[in-house]
């Protein structure tokens, strides 16, 4: 089988097609699925290829549809719920946090809510506070959920397939700012989600940047820019935030002795804090050459006005400047 060219969005589409073709128990449910312009090119014509009984467009009921997918998973199906914007998914928090995350534990490991909840971070373009949020840290806080944030084209496809084939509830979070990336991918190999860990996506020696989702792309771009200035950046892409494994990050930080975390959520109580805490509490005293640092969103809702918006979101240049500042100390 030959490799094929994808972008991030069509890689997600390929994952849906693979799952629907190969697993009769897979179905997809969510708003807009019979007219999926909300989700870029990631779900085009699935309803036409696989039928509206397996690709279900729904009433405006995030809560009931998420709960229904969980219930269907308890009855042997492998559902994928699609929330074109994470903000609207907040109506479904009981289903996600109280139900999906708890059923295995509450029932002594007998119930398996193997549901995948695809929620999309879709921000910018003056959309403002309720069309913008990146709430991955919330879900990383909840035991029982698996939280996946693919930052590459390959992970967009392969981690979606792995999420759906996993018996646990998975929050799969993709970011519309990643959709333009392109890559050549080999045919699908099914991965076991439970053994997926952070990966070193760029090798370097001066500083480690840890990030996930779109922040990982910023980190890779910053590393590229700094290459010409002879600063060697290692980027570790977290990929799976819950359960959170740190060994690969530890190895990298021990080597570079510098740590910067970039995160697309808010700074306070965010996932950036969790990364630094877990690393610092395991590192030998004196291992770091500089204090660990982080870049995340300021503690404010997303503004609409373009001037404010531009300042609010992290840019590649922000990451470049932060690295220089750390290494200049």
């Amino acid at each position, binding site marked *: 089988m030959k490799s094929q060219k994808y972008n991030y969005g069509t890689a997600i589409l390929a994952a849906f097609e693979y799952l629907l073709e190969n697993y009769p128990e897979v179905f997809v449910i969510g708003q807009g699925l019979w007219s999926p312009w909300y989700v870029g090119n990631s779900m085009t014509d699935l309803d036409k290829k696989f039928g509206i009984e397996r690709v279900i467009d*729904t009433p405006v009921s995030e809560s009931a549809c998420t709960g229904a997918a*969980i219930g269907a998973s308890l009855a042997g199906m492998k559902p994928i719920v699609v929330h074109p914007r994470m903000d609207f998914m907040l109506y479904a928090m009981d289903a996600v946090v*109280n139900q999906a995350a708890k059923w295995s534990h509450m029932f002594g490991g007998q119930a398996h809510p193997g549901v995948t909840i695809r929620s999309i971070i879709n921000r910018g373009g003056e959309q403002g506070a309720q069309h913008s949020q990146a709430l991955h840290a919330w879900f990383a806080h909840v035991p029982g959920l698996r939280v996946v944030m693919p930052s590459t084209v390959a992970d967009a496809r392969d981690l979606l397939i792995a999420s759906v084939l996993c018996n646990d509830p998975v929050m799969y979070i993709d970011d519309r700012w990643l959709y333009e990336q392109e890559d050549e991918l080999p045919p699908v190999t099914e991965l076991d989600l439970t053994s997926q860990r952070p990966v070193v996506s760029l090798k370097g020696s001066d500083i480690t940047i840890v990030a996930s989702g779109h922040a990982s792309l910023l980190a890779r771009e910053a590393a590229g820019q700094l290459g010409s200035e002879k600063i060697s950046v290692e980027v570790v892409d977290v990929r799976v935030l819950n359960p959170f494994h740190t060994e690969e990050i530890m190895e990298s930080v021990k080597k570079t002795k510098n740590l910067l975390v970039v995160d697309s959520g808010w700074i306070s109580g965010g996932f950036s804090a969790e990364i630094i805490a877990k690393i610092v509490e395991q590192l030998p005293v004196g291992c770091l050459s500089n204090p660990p640092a982080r870049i995340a969103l300021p503690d404010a809702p997303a503004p609409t006005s373009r001037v404010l918006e531009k300042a609010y979101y992290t840019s590649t240049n922000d990451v470049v400047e932060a690295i220089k500042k750390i290494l200049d100390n």
Partner: protein
Amino acid sequence: MKNDLKQLSNPEKYHDPISINNQDISALKNMLSTMLLIRKTEQQLAFGRKNGLIGGPVHLGAGQEAIAVGISQNLKKTDRVFGAHRSHSHLLALNLDFYKLFAEVLGKKTGFSKGMGGSMHLYDQPNGFYGSVPIVAGTVSLAVGAAMAAKMQKTDDIGLVYIGDGAVEEGVVHESFNLAKIQQAPMLFVIENNLFASHMHISLRQPSDMISRFAIANDIPYKLVDGNDVVAVAKASKELIDDMRAGKGPALIELVTYRWYGHVDWRDDVDVGVARSLDDIESWKLRDPIMRLSKSMIKAKMWSMEQENDLNNMLDKEIQTAWEKAINDPYPSSDATLKYVYS
């Protein structure tokens, strides 16, 4: 509040024996003994809670046994039944293993949920009981999804959820009615209308005491039935379930009943909230579903007080034996807390 339930909510009415014409004698005896065993199981739980042997809350449904027992006459092990906080009867009506319930409520690893659930989180999927949780209305949408799955899997199984009159005050229930209807899911919404949500009487919470009005609003077929008449419950639910198995979409059944204990644990709860007096409770106890069935059967000469006494003695002994066995069972091992987080 509009009293659309009319005499169904009047505790002075419906005290007479129930109609058992043309009913199978062995089925009647079975329903009587099942209701009695559920009652005794809950009385034992009340006792265990009061004397401190049970550490966590128990939401007892004594007085409401006819609902689960009547409906379960029409269920298969492959149906998908979901419960709520007050679900001992819902589970026991599918699998009368009261020992396993005792063990669970006592936190023992031999229990229905391996000692990880207690009274409020019960699981017995092999017998059709997919799970109960204490978040009010938390399982309603899950049951709709299990019903949608039954349809996708091309079975004639149904999804079913037991909820109370309080649960319909949660928004997700209305989303679920609508979703079930638009999907034509084989989903039975069972409303146990006992007129109270915790301490609050329905007159303080809703403009009408009849929950079936939401079925009308969603174009869902429904029946409104005396929930303390086990034969009527079995008959009405059979008609709805038969239609659902034949592909006619969701249905709702509203059963009017009353719980004898307070919202949680063994007390009467006449001193919290309003509109719940000892006089009310005594009147409602005259609508006891067990007593009414027993009287009907005695009147029809298919049952006798002697038989009932013998049955009582036998069940009391079984309850004691199971309780003592459960008391002596082991707790979950210390690794259980982390072991069950993921599959």
